[in-house]
């Protein structure tokens, strides 16, 4: 308990929150401008790379993960790892249209006619905006 109080006194000098906020805004502007170059790699980098940087900055400086005990960070990281695990386990089934020994005829581009049901309209490809 005493440590908690001591912990606190060390950080009595507040970081310059406004400066961090300003950096975040600059990053936001970059992430909006990035796609205007219309280069896919740049778009992805400016969109998701910057999102990660922004999240890191908010977590570190605003949520004060930098002064929290390490295991709080590990806890958050573990949750993210579980999500990656989930993604890795599910993506082979949900993301692919042609798996090992199965196809999704309604969504697949390669094998349109396989499902012998002429009454089915392929929605996935058309996007379905006509509904």
């Amino acid at each position: 308990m005493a440590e908690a109080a001591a912990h606190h006194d060390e950080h009595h000098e507040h970081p310059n929150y406004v400066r961090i906020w300003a950096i975040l805004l600059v990053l936001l502007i970059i992430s909006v401008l990035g796609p205007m170059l219309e280069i896919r790699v740049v778009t992805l980098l400016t969109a998701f790379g910057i999102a990660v940087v922004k999240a890191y900055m908010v977590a570190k400086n605003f949520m004060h993960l930098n002064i929290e005990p390490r295991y709080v960070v590990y806890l958050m990281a573990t949750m993210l790892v579980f999500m990656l695990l989930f993604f890795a386990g599910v993506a082979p089934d949900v993301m692919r249209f042609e798996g090992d020994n199965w196809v999704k005829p309604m969504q697949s581009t390669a094998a349109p006619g396989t499902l012998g049901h002429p009454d089915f309209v392929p929605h996935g490809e058309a996007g379905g905006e006509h509904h």
Partner: protein
Amino acid sequence: MIETWVEAVSTYARDVDNLILLIGVLVGFWFILCEAVFFGFIIKFRHRPGQKAQYVTGEEKSQKRWISIPHLLVLVCDVFIIVGAVQVWYTIKQNLPEAEQTVRVVGQQWAWTFVHPGKDGKLDTADDIALVDELHVQANTTYHYLLESRDVLHNFSVPVFRLKQDAVPGRTITGWFNAQKTGQWDVQCAEICGIGHGIMGARIFVESPDEHAAFIASHSQAAPVAVATASGR
């Protein structure tokens, strides 16, 4: 083990049975050993007046050996089981041998439609034979099945083949079987599919080449009618 209750009809049925036997022997050994030691301890170390229990922390290496060695042996058994399971799975589900015939299996609430290729031996032609709740296959022939569902999940299960596969709407799943004996057996729906799940059984007829040819000949005329009843839900 399983054959006592359910005949082994497909080529890979024995593989499944042997795998089950292997697992049965390995886990049976551990199970009997554990229960024997467990009940032995209960009897041996019953409370007797004036006798104090021993003080064993279990934290020392010499004591931990009593659990770490069995635990390594369990790991070894696991490896055997994994190897067996992977092989059987690969044979049944992953590796598709070249098809001699193909049938389409369509599940819907609450009936199976089996589309047999007609005389030309090809699916999706005019002479296809579509039957409700009856699947006719020829013995000693490698079949591919194309499994589909029209509404909810179903499961194409043929216990004598040791075959089960979910039918997922929106997917066409390919699998295979090769029946070794003639006769007729149950086909089950092994995935709950609504109120009529309990009545969604079908029969599979494994026929000799002559019988199968006769079946195709006899249904060649009736086919269009059968298609009509199958697709009208």
